[in-house]
C-alpha cells in the first residue's frame, strides 16, 4: 500500500540457532501508532535494527517509506527519530553539547526545539552526561529523537527508567506526533503502555509474529479472571455453559472464571445468587501472549 510507512515481508534475521526473527510480515500505516509488544529477547530490537539499516535481513525484505533501508539508508535516516533500547552517550559531553551535535548531524534540524523539549521533560541541559541518572539519559535520548519532528519515530522500550510523571509527558509527545500525521513504531513489554498509546499492536514472541490486532480487538480477545464469592456454596455448572466463559472452577462458595469477551451473561448468572464479593484481574502480558499463542497463525 502506498501509504504504508513500514512494510516487512517474510523478514528473517538469523543469529545462529536461537536468536533473531523468523518470517515476519506486517505493515505499519502512515499516521498510526503501532505497538510492538513482546517479552525481552523476543526479537523486537532485531526487527527495529533492520528498519534502520544497522543490521541486514538474512531473508525477506523490509521497506521504510517505500525503499529498502539497506539500499537507501540516508533517505530513511533523514526522516526518522530513533530511541534505541540500550544506548551509550558521549559521556564527557554536556547534555546541550550532545544534543547540538546531533542537530548538526542533521544539518541543524531540531536545534530550536532542544530547549522547549528539555523544559517539558525537566531535563537539565547544563550537566555532563556521565552525571545523569538512567532516567535523565533516557530523556536526553527522547529529545534527540523528537527534536527534528521526524515523519517516523522508532522507539525501542522508550519509557525504561522514566518516572510515571515523565511517562505521561512522553505519551503526550506521542499523541502530538499522531496529531500532526506522524507515524510511531513503539516497542514495549508493558501492556498498559501499549494500550495507552497505540492504535494497533503486533505481538512477537521467540522471534515470531503471533498476531497483529487493533488495540480494541486485543482487549476483547484478552483472557480475564473473575472470582465471585457467594453467600452459599454454588454449583459451578451454571457458569460453565456460558459462551464467554473459557474455564470455570468452583470451590465451596467461591467460583473462579476465565473469561473472554462480554461479561453481561456472567453478571446476570451471578446475580441469581447472593454475591458477597467480586474480584477481577486484568490480563497480564503473559496471559495475552498465551492467548495469542493459542490463536495460532499470525493475522
Amino acid at each position, binding site marked *: 500500500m502506498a501509504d504504508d510507512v513500514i512494510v516487512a515481508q517474510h523478514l528473517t534475521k538469523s543469529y545462529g540457532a536461537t536468536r533473531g526473527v523468523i518470517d515476519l510480515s506486517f505493515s505499519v500505516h502512515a499516521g498510526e501508532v503501532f505497538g510492538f509488544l513482546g517479552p525481552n529477547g523476543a526479537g523486537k*530490537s*532485531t526487527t527495529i*535494527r533492520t528498519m*534502520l*539499516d*544497522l*543490521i*541486514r535481513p538474512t531473508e525477506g525484505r523490509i521497506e521504510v517509506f517505500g525503499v529498502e533501508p539497506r539500499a537507501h*539508508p*540516508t533517505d530513511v*535516516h*533523514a526522516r*526518522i527519530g*530513533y530511541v*534505541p533500547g*540500550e*544506548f*551509550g*552517550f*558521549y559521556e*564527557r*559531553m554536556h547534555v546541550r553539547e550532545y544534543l547540538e*551535535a*546531533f542537530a*548538526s*548531524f*542533521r*544539518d541543524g534540524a531540531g536545534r530550536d526545539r532542544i530547549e522547549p523539549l528539555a523544559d517539558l521533560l525537566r531535563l537539565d541541559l547544563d550537566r555532563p552526561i556521565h552525571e545523569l541518572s538512567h532516567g535523565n539519559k533516557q530523556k536526553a*535520548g527522547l529529545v*534527540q529523537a523528537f527534536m527534528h519532528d521526524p515523519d517516523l519515530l522508532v522507539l525501542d522500550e522508550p519509557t525504561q527508567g522514566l518516572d510515571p510523571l515523565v511517562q505521561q509527558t512522553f505519551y503526550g509527545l506521542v499523541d502530538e506526533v499522531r496529531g500532526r500525521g506522524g507515524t510511531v513504531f513503539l516497542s514495549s513489554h508493558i501492556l498498559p503502555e501499549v494500550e495507552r498509546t497505540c492504535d494497533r499492536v503486533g505481538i512477537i514472541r521467540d522471534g515470531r509474529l503471533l498476531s497483529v490486532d487493533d488495540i480494541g480487538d486485543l482487549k476483547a480477545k484478552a483472557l480475564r479472571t473473575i472470582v465471585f464469592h457467594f453467600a452459599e456454596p454454588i454449583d459451578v455448572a451454571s457458569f460453565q455453559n456460558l459462551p464467554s466463559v473459557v474455564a470455570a472452577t468452583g470451590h465451596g462458595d467461591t467460583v473462579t472464571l476465565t473469561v473472554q469477551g462480554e461479561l453481561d451473561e456472567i453478571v446476570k448468572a451471578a446475580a441469581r445468587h447472593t454475591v458477597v464479593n467480586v474480584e477481577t484481574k486484568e490480563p497480564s502480558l503473559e496471559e495475552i501472549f498465551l492467548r495469542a499463542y493459542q490463536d495460532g497463525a499470525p493475522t
Partner: protein
Amino acid sequence: MRPLIRVSLSAQRRAVIGWGIGLAAVALTYAAIYPSIKQSAADLDTYMQNLPDALRSIIGTDYTSPAGYLRAELFALLGPVLLLVYGIGAGGKAIAGEEEARSLDLLLTTPIPRGRVVVDKAITLALTVLALSVLVFVVVIALGPPFGLDVAIANVAAMCLMFFLLGLAFAWFALAVGCATGRRAWASAVAGGVAVVTYVLNAIAPTISGLSWAQTLSPFRWYLEPDPLVTGIHTENVLVLAAVALVCLVVAVWTFRRRDLAA
C-alpha cells in the same frame, strides 16, 4: 568543517593535550641531556660500536651527532612508541570503541552515511596525529638549538612528516581492524602486534644475510631509512607510507559498510 569531524575532534581534545605534553616532555628532556652526551662523545661512540648489529641498525651509527642523537633517542623508539600507542588506541576507539559503548547506533541513524562516518573519523585521527607531529617538530626546532642540537630545519621537517605518516598508517590500520571486527581489543592487539613485529623485523632483517629484503615489509624501514634527519625527504618513502594508510582506510570503509552492527 564537517560536523562529525568537529564533534570528534572536540572529544579527542583531552587525549591529544595529554599525549602532546608527554611527547613534548620527552623531546625536551632528551634535548636538555644532549650537552652532557656531547662531552662524553668519544667514550659513547666506542660503546656504540660494540652494540649488537640489530640495535645499531635501528638507532643508527652516529649516536653523538645532533642528527644521530635525535634519531636514537626520539625518532627511533620512544617517539614512535608514544605516537603509536595514541594512534592505535584512538583508531580502535573511533568506530569499535563507539560500537562497544553503544553510542554508534544513534550516530549511524543520522543522515550521515556509514562510509562518511568512517572517513570523518579517519580525518579526525589524521588531524590529531598531525597535531602531535607538528608539536614534536616545533619543540625540536625551537628547543634543540639552545642545547646544541642543530639539525637542518628541512631535515627535521622531513623526519616529522615521516613520523606523521607512520602514526597515520597505524592509526588507520587500527581503525580498519575495528571497522572489520567491531572489537576495540582486536584493533589494539592486531595493530599493536603488527607494530612490534615489523619494528623488530626492521631491526634484525638487515643483519641476517639473505633476509635483508624482508626489511622492505616493515613500515619502519620506510619511515626511517634512509635517515630523513641526514638525507631529508624521500618521495618514495612518503608514497609507500601514504599508500599503506590509504589502503587501511579503504579496507575500513569497505568492511564497515558491509557488516551488521553488534547488538
